């Protein structure tokens, strides 16, 4: 129900209080469960640091889904056929649904969706910086499906076995839809590549712009990552950034060949010895600039989310007021 979803109660009443972190017996029980590859559920005791890490990760993920609606949403009104319009609209709607599942998973950890939304809108919370790049042509929609959803799948498949039950279950659902998105994106690009010269140029231009940001989605090199050790211990992170990135690149090079596009990296070549593709140096300065708010669209994306929230305030208030009045009327009638 809509009004409840806006602010859920904080704590499962049967759950053990998360503040009592220093209980060796509970800690041992928790560790044993993780070691055995079992799931931690909302009612289980968990270390406060584990809970906090999950809240951060799940909410960042949820925010990414929501902000991620904007760049592709930019093309719904201009989709070139009715079929493509319907596919794109359904895809952007799916991303909103992913946001909903993930906020719900975060809520099981005792934070409300309103609080998390506030963290996003105030700029305190992060979201995937890929969505701070602009969508400049119709081909961007296909390339986002192919590369961005593709990279997201690589990142997310290991999370289907993450140690926190509600998060893992949300990821199973989400991954199914993401792979559908990736196929649809690839299919849209195939169609464009069989089209006119102008359409093929559109695709190549989009690939040139999205390739490097896509491989940045896996995050800093393992040697530069914080958190990784503890998160691996907790079963939240199962495969390292660099391994995931390599896996993605190896899979994508072949798909680019099928499409007939050139990936914009002259150093990209098969390394027989490693059994992987070598690739060029990632521009981490650009990555950190965008993460820290200096991409082309950071300001606009956040402004769009704030506008939706602020402009919708009277609607949410009206729904609450009506629910209150209806409840009072029902009580008076009883």
């Amino acid at each position, binding site marked *: 129900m*809509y009004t409840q*979803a*806006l602010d859920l109660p904080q704590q499962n009443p049967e759950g053990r209080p998360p503040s009592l972190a220093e209980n060796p017996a509970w800690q041992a029980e928790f560790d044993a469960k993780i070691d055995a590859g079992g799931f931690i559920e909302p009612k289980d005791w968990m270390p406060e640091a584990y809970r906090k890490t999950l809240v951060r990760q799940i909410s960042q993920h949820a925010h990414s889904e*929501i902000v991620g*609606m*904007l760049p592709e*949403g930019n093309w*719904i*009104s*201009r*989709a*070139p*056929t*009715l*079929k*493509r*319009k*319907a596919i794109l*609209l*359904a895809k*952007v*709607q799916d991303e*909103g*649904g992913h*946001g*909903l599942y993930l*906020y719900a998973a975060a809520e099981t950890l005792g934070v409300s969706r309103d609080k998390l939304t506030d963290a996003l809108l105030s700029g305190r919370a992060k979201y995937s910086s890929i969505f701070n790049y602009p969508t400049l042509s*119709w081909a961007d929609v296909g390339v986002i499906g192919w590369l961005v959803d593709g990279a997201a799948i690589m990142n997310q498949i290991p999370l289907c076995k993450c140690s926190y039950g509600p998060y893992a279950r949300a990821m199973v659902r989400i991954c199914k839809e993401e792979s559908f998105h990736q196929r649809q994106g690839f299919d*849209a690009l195939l*169609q*464009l590549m*069989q*089209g*006119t010269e*102008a*359409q093929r140029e559109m695709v190549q231009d989009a690939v040139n712009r999205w390739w490097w940001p896509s491989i940045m989605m896996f995050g800093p090199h393992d040697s530069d990552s914080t958190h990784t050790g503890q998160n691996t211990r907790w079963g939240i992170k199962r495969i390292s950034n660099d391994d995931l990135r390599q896996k993605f690149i190896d899979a994508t090079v072949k798909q680019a060949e099928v499409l007939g596009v050139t990936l914009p990296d002259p150093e990209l070549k098969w390394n027989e010895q490693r059994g992987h593709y070598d690739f060029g140096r990632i521009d981490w300065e650009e990555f950190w600039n965008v993460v820290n708010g200096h991409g082309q669209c950071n300001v606009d994306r956040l402004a*769009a989310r704030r*506008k*939706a*929230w602020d*402009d*919708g*305030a*009277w*609607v*949410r*208030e*009206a*729904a*609450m*007021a*009506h629910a209150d*009045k*209806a409840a009072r009327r029902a009580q008076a009638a009883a």
Partner: protein
Amino acid sequence: MTEMAQQTTATSPGHVEYVMRMGDNALILGQRTAEWCGHSPVLEEDMALANMALDLIGQARMLLTHAGRLEGRGRDEDALAFQRNEPAFRNLTLCELPNEDFARTMLRIALFSRFQLLLWERLLSSTDSELAAIAAKSIKEARYHAQHSGDWVVRLGDGTEESHRRAQAALDYLWPYTAEFFIPSAADEAAAEAGVGPLWSTLEADWEAAVRPLLEEAMLSLPAPVPFRSQGKFGRHSEHMGHLLAEMQYLQRIHPGARW
């Protein structure tokens, strides 16, 4: 909707226009409703508005495909959606008006879906078997649209002072455009004659009977009647239509003949 059931000859030019008009209503309102996706007051409404837009675009695809077949000039759904100019579109003006705010958006869907629902009910027994099949599929969607938008109209009308003021302003703005639904037309005459569908003018009483209780429950007052009659269904549109089409049709227009 088997091959067998597909009607491919129009009983008259009015028959084609009748189907095309319904397709245009669904397309243009779907286009408008989709503008909310990613910008709604609450995530659940992003989902619901996208759902309704998807239903409408789906209906538009079936109806325009069918209209194109009936017309027999080789135009498919995309040729009809992306290659016609303003005067060739036959949608009700109501469908093309800007969303403005959530109150106008929901009230428009409430008013239109109640009209569409009456049409779908009658069209279940259309002599045009394809149209009857489309009605059978679409009627469930229109019921959901009527329910969801109606719930919001009541919430907004009853909610806060501001939401009531906005809902009333939306009604004052939209109401004059609803008269267009019932203006008699030659296409209606031809379609009714052949048993394709009802005269839209005959739906007025039933529509009012569906709309009035909703507005009452929402505590909104019916605006006084005005002499103005919008003419979108005859191809004379508002200033908003050209902008809507310029945006919607741009890719097809700048890449003539390209496939997508």
